[in-house]
Each structure stands twice: as structure tokens, then as C-alpha cells.
């Protein structure tokens, strides 16, 4: 009997809540929550407005669901491509070796050290708050592929010498076949853990940029919600519902993603421990 990991269970439950909030609710919204002055301003929470309204006359709850959708989209988009590129670059480095390995490792190390935020700030400042979420995502992919690549490379290096790979090779499988049949299943759960972790990093970076007003100001993300709240003195005016909603959402979302990624990682480690030890 394998016991279910509490981390995974809790993580999945919270994730389900966020998928409902960001994936389904925005389509049911009675209004475009970005519109200003649709409702009376600065209302406290009530039956009509779950989380009250903002100083700009927006419904905080619908705005939050809309922002969650955009933030999740950025996270998933960046994580998908960064993990994909990283896994292939890392596998190539590990299996090909030689100069391909050196070049890939070097680039990975460089992009890990170069701080991404100053470059994003430079870019956004030139686009004057009109940087599209797509452009920001592309820069984030550029800075996030090296982590999976490094890890994948070391996995590939160790795997090159493993028994089951040699067995497959001696029984006449080609390299592509070995990759597809033996190695991909082996690294799949690891790549999943990395994917979830990159979702977290991407959302965190975009929100960070947004909090200081340098992401796309025309779109609502969890970060731009905090930015508008700060700009309109939600803190001095003690309008905790407005500033608190996105802050709370980010905290819960990140704890959930972290629980998921460590949960997946430790479960696959356990399975490997029983498997080919």
C-alpha cells in the first residue's frame, strides 16, 4: 500500500479552487471587471460584492478571478516552454557530451547568473506599460530554461551508465527509441515537478514586475492588482480588502504550487528508491 502524500493532496485541493477561480469563473463574470466606476467605490464586502469594491469602482472578487486567470496563463505558458526547452537542452548536453555539452552548460550557467529583473525593467520602460504579457513571457522563458537543463544534464549523465539503458542498447534499440521508451518515462515526474515550480517562478517574476507598475497595465494580473491598490493609497486608506485579496491569493497559490512540486518530487524519488535500487 502506498500512502498518499498529504502535500500532494492539500496542493491539489487548493489548485482545484484556483482553477475554478481563474479558469471557469472569469467566463461567468457579469461584467468586464477591468472597467472603472461600474459600482460605488470602496464598498466593504457584502452579499452583492464578496470582497467589496475598489477605489476605482471595480468589483474586487471578479477582478481577482480575472487576474488569477491571466497570472495562471503566464505561469503555465512560461513553464511549459521553459521546461520543454530545458529538458531537451539538458538531455542533448548529457548524451552528446563534448563541445555541445560545454556550450549548453555555459549558456545555462550564464542565464542563471544574469539577473532577469533589470532586463525586464529595461524592456518595460521602453514599452511604457504596454509590454504585452506574451513578450514578458518570452523573456521569462529565456531566463527559466537553464534550471531544468542543468538538472536534466546531470540526470542524463548518470543515466548513460545505467543498467537498463545499456540493456536496451545491447538489445538493438536506437538512440531515439531508447529516449522515448526508457528515459522519458523515467524523467517524466521530475519534469512535472520542475514544471510546477517554474509556474511559481514565472508568476512571481511577472507579479514582481507588475507590483512596481512595469508589467502590462492594460491587463489585470495579481501583480497589477497590487500595483493599482498601492497607487490609490489602499494602505493609507486602510482598504484591506482591496490590497489584501491579491496578496492573500498569491500567498495561497504559491504555497499550493510549492506543496505540489515538492510532493511530486518526493513521490517520484520514493518510487525510484523501490524500483531500480
Amino acid at each position, binding site marked *: 500500500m502506498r500512502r498518499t502524500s498529504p502535500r500532494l493532496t492539500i496542493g491539489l485541493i487548493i489548485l482545484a479552487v484556483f482553477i475554478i477561480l481563474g479558469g471557469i469563473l472569469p467566463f461567468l463574470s457579469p461584467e468586464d471587471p477591468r472597467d472603472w466606476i461600474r459600482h460605488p467605490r470602496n464598498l466593504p464586502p457584502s452579499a452583492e460584492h464578496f470582497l467589496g469594491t475598489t477605489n476605482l469602482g471595480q468589483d474586487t472578487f471578479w477582478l481577482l478571478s480575472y487576474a488569477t486567470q491571466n497570472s495562471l496563463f503566464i505561469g503555465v505558458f512560461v513553464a511549459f516552454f521553459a521546461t520543454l526547452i530545458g529538458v531537451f537542452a539538458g538531455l542533448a548536453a548529457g548524451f552528446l557530451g563534448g563541445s555541445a555539452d560545454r556550450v549548453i552548460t555555459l549558456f545555462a550557467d550564464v542565464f542563471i547568473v544574469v539577473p532577469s529583473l533589470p532586463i525586464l525593467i529595461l524592456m518595460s520602460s521602453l514599452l511604457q506599460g504596454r509590454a504585452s504579457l506574451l513578450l514578458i513571457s518570452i523573456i521569462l522563458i529565456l531566463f527559466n530554461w537553464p534550471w531544468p537543463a542543468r538538472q536534466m544534464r546531470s540526470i542524463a549523465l548518470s543515466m548513460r551508465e545505467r543498467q537498463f539503458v545499456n540493456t536496451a542498447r545491447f538489445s538493438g534499440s536506437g538512440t531515439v527509441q531508447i529516449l522515448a521508451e526508457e528515459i522519458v518515462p523515467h524523467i517524466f515526474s521530475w519534469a512535472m515537478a520542475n514544471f510546477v515550480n517554474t509556474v511559481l517562478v514565472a508568476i512571481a517574476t511577472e507579479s514582481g514586475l507588475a507590483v512596481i507598475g512595469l508589467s502590462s497595465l492594460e491587463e489585470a494580473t495579481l501583480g497589477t492588482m497590487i500595483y493599482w491598490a498601492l497607487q490609490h493609497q489602499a494602505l493609507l486608506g486602510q482598504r484591506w480588502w482591496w490590497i489584501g485579496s491579491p496578496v492573500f491569493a498569491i500567498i495561497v497559490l504559491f504555497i499550493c504550487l510549492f506543496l505540489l512540486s*515538492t510532493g511530486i518530487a518526493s513521490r517520484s524519488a520514493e518510487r525510484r528508491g523501490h524500483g531500480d535500487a
Partner: protein
Amino acid sequence: MQFAKFVVTRLIAYVLVIWIGITVVFFVPRFMPTDPVEAMLGRIMTRGAYMEAEQVEAMRATLTQAFGLEGTLMEQYFGFMQRIFVTREFGPSLSMFPTPVNELIGRALPWTLGLLLSSTIIAWILGNAIGLLAGYRSRWLSSRTLEIIAIFVYPIPYYITALILIILFIHINPIFPLFFSIRGDPPSLEFISSVIYNSILPAASIVIVGFGWWVLSMKALSSSISEEDFVYFAKLKGAGEGRIMTAYVLRNAILPQVTVLALQIGTIFNGALITEILFGYPGLGTMTYNAVLQADYNLLMGTITISIIAVATSTLIIDLLYPVFDPRIRQR
């Protein structure tokens, strides 16, 4: 031999990091869909400054020169590199004309380095010490409680921690000042105490997040090393608990922690930039932010270039400290 090879590879990587980082900075304004000069002009105009047509033309020429947009792409690139590596001049600040950008950065850099170094070192030492204890005594209730707290603290980004601290300790309980204010002159006691008083919250937001990570990773490392045969052997040999923990477990667990610290400097720096802006802390982050708001391109290029060099240099220093912890590289 091993040591020489180690130093040389690190130095090559260091030069490459700076070179590639600066190259990216060079190409970003040139591959934007908008014209950087017009974008900056637009920013200056929207700030409400009224300008005559000739003044606009003069400003356009100054900006074209500031961006180094004259000549072919190759010429521009070499001119750009020369300005950064040979003359080390970023020109005058456009918003605080005619103060040189170098002087402004010289004023801000010690603040950022002070905040970043002190909070990273505190978080690293404290987190690793507690993580070591928790990993070595992994069955204690306090160890497990600590791990759960760390799991809930670590994933939260710096600026959220900073915002929560601002809400709790500036707005709800006004213990700390709303605006960053320094009293007295540098060597005096008044100056030092006001710097510490003003820096506690920004530093705390960086320490709290970093602390969570070091506790988690150190606990995982030390609890697995504690189960190794050589630790068991040391116990049979009758070595004291304290000695086993430091000389056997810590010596081995600390190596990956140094490597990870070197890899994380860039991430920590990103976080510190936003933390600075939220608190109005007078370092590179706030200066970069003001440069963006005031369309001060010279200053922006200066702070961004210095950020990349500062992060690369800190990483190099940590890398070069590695042999202190690892005798295998030192002695061969």
C-alpha cells in the same frame, strides 16, 4: 593543478556572464517594436514639460547619442562595449543634470550591497544552523514544526513578505517609519542607528524568505547524511554529539549549500530590487525605478549594467570561496 583549473574556469565564466548580460542589454532597446528615442521623448513630454520644437530636436539628438544609435549595428556595439569596459562612463544623468551617472551609482551601490550582503549572510548562517539541528534531530517535534513553518514561508516572494511587513509594522502598528529617513552624518552614532532602524524591515523581508529555503534544504541534506555509514561509525567510535554534527554532518552538507548560494544570488538580487522600491530604500533598485519614471536613460543603463556586474562579481566571490569549504580542490 586542480585549484588553478578551478580558478581559471570560474574567471572565464565570470567574463562571459558579464559579456552576454551586457549584450542582451544592448540588443533589448534595438529589437523593441517601438523606437526607444520616441518612447523616451514621449515619457518626458507626458511629465508635463513644455518644449519648443528646437528643444525637442535637441533632446532627440541627445537621446539618439545616449542610446548610441548612430552608425551601423557593429559600430554601435563596439562603441557600447567601449563605453562600459574602457572608459566606464555612462554620461550625465538626464533627470539630475549634470550629475554624472557614475556618481549617483557610487552613492546607491553601498546601500544595496550592505542590505543584500548582511541579510543574505544572516539568512544563510541562521537557516543552515537551524536546518542542521533540525535534520540531525529530525524526530523532534520542534524540528517538524519548524519544517512546516518553512514550507509556508519559503514560497512567498520577497515583495509579498515586504508588503505584509509594511501593512503590519508601518500601517497597523506604526513601529517603523513610513518614509526612509536618515539622520546625522556618516561616522556618527546617530547616523548608524538611524540606518539600522530604517533597514530592519527591508532586511527582515529578505531574511525571512531566504531563511525558509536554507532551513528546508539543509534539513533534507543533513538528515540524509546522518544516516550514512561513516556517521554511524563515528557514533560507535564514541565521538561526541557536537563533534559528529559539525565535523561529520556539517562538513559534507555545507558544500552544496555554498554552490546553491552562488546560483541564487541573481534571484535574491531580483527580490531585493523590488523590496528596495517598496520601502523607498536608497539603493540601486529605487534608483533604477526612478530612472524609469523620469525617463533617465543614461542612469537606467548605468544601474542595469552595474546590477549585472555586481551580481556576477558576488557569484564569483562565493565560487572562489568554495575551496575554503572543500579540501579536495584546495590540496590537489
